[in-house]
């Protein structure tokens, strides 16, 4: 009895090649710990607690006087907006002649567990805005918020509308009841009070779990197979390691802020209903009367477009633009697509509405 298994020799060849690539990998690629994610040079112009305000250096001529302040998300660090010279959101904005500042929320420790929306919005953000207004001798800034930074930017603008010239919201978390993502599903069933009372800050391990179930086979398996397949493609692996390092750099979220965020946005959905309260003041989205530019991505599996888009209809301004892009949450801010489509549109929009 003889049985013959016919296998394409190319499969064996490919298998052996991947094995060789795995062995070669350490010789070809730097370890995540060995690389720095800092890209575009900046100065730390203001700091408060763990928060830092970064002012990016540029050799390009400024085309507008109104500075752009970017409020990064609460999850992971700001580096994704400046991850690679060819995919950098910050560098693109600088190249378009804008003066760019960014808030780095830092890494909160147990000591920061009582920081809430009031501290983030009315202290950190407001002090950063005041600093920039003073530095740039202008009356208003343009404010951009990405992801949960979009929630903070929305709340800030509703409470301090007189300081904001233009509001840019990139995949903002606004209407939790309409969010169809796994993140929203888990957030709605979470005993957030118990979590904060027992462990204080929201630990990064919990976020890693949430990330791991977003696209478990594509992100947990296939991504690494592709990495080893492409190990000789210098640009590919360099970008891969940088993004991986960014993904694994998840600071905890201050307990009170996390509690307020989950309750107000996901569980009780108060923000979009103009019922959210910050330091005794109601966050009325109708106060947002300046130009608003909202960017959403159809393939966003972290913040679904249905969750972000309601802000476009909730604000009182007549000058509002909604752009829906055929990409994902990170693709919208750090990809060749964002460089070609998203950023030129935003730069143009900002320049038309900024002080010259």
């Amino acid at each position, binding site marked *: 009895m003889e049985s013959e298994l016919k296998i*394409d020799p190319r499969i064996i060849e490919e298998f052996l090649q991947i094995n060789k690539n795995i062995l070669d990998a350490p010789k070809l690629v730097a370890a995540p710990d060995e690389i720095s994610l800092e890209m575009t040079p900046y100065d730390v112009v203001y700091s408060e607690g763990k928060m830092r305000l970064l002012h990016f250096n540029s050799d390009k001529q400024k085309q507008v006087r109104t500075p752009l302040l970017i409020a990064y998300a609460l999850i992971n660090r700001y580096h994704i907006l400046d991850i690679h010279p060819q995919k950098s959101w910050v560098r693109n904005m600088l190249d378009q002649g804008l003066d760019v500042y960014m808030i780095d929320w830092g890494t909160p420790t147990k000591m920061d567990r009582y920081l809430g929306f009031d501290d983030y919005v009315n202290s950190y953000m407001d002090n950063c805005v005041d600093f920039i207004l003073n530095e740039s001798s202008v009356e208003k800034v343009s404010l951009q918020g990405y992801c949960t930074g979009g929630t903070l930017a929305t709340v800030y603008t509703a409470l301090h509308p007189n300081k904001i010239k233009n509001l840019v919201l990139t995949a903002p978390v606004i209407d939790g009841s309409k969010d169809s993502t796994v993140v929203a*599903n888990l957030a709605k069933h979470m005993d957030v009070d118990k979590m904060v009372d027992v462990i204080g800050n929201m630990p990064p391990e919990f976020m890693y779990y949430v990330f791991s179930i977003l696209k478990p086979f594509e992100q947990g398996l296939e991504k690494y197979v592709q990495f080893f397949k492409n190990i000789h493609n210098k640009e590919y692996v360099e970008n891969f390691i940088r993004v991986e390092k960014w993904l694994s750099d998840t600071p905890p979220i201050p307990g009170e802020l996390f509690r307020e965020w989950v309750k107000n946005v996901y569980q009780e959905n108060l923000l979009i209903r103009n019922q959210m309260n910050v330091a005794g003041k109601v966050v009325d989205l109708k106060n947002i009367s300046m130009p608003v530019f909202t960017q959403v991505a159809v393939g966003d599996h972290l913040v679904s477009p249905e969750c972000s888009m309601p802000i476009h209809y909730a604000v009182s301004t007549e000058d509002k633009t909604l752009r829906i892009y055929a990409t994902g949450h990170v693709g919208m801010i750090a990809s060749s697509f964002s460089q070609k489509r998203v950023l030129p549109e935003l730069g143009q929009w900002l320049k038309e509405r900024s002080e010259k």
Partner: protein
Amino acid sequence: MYFMASSEDYKKSIGYYKHVSLFWTDLLSLMSSRPHSLLSTGPLRKFGVNAKKVNTEMIEINQELAEFNARLSEYYKQLTDTWNEAQKQFNKKVPEIPTDTEHLDSTKRIWIDIFENYFTRLFDSPEFAENFGKMVSSELELAKHWNNIISLMMESANMPTKKEIDELYKELHLLRKRVAKLEKIASIGGSANGK
């Protein structure tokens, strides 16, 4: 169903054990005029008193473990059932694994797509989120008892407990806010005075 019944039985027996344990600890303590107080002085006397509380926490940890195990089993059951369903669907779509490289690549793509769809549907479901939420909640209960035990130990050693440190953090947070507010008022006053 069988699991739920056995989990209920487990809870009942632990509850009974807790009751019996506390009953005899208390009664023996009363009957013997608190023998630990005779044997211990100073901080050790405090530990003698706290030992009973540690015992109670340990029993409650066992009670919570029953809930956690039930939720964890359900969690793995949901994952396993979904895996089996996805595999069945894959077998239906690809009855035979191809042996040439082009078809193998497209087969892998089909496998990933099917599994991704099935698992995303699971993670999006209220049943998964509800069980996961309760599992995390029971984990937090375990953590809470563990914190309580550590706090009792710290208290016995005359060191600050987690609760006391949290109070300090809160106090510090409020102080920082007050200082920031005062600084703002002072700076407005300062510029108004032309300083």
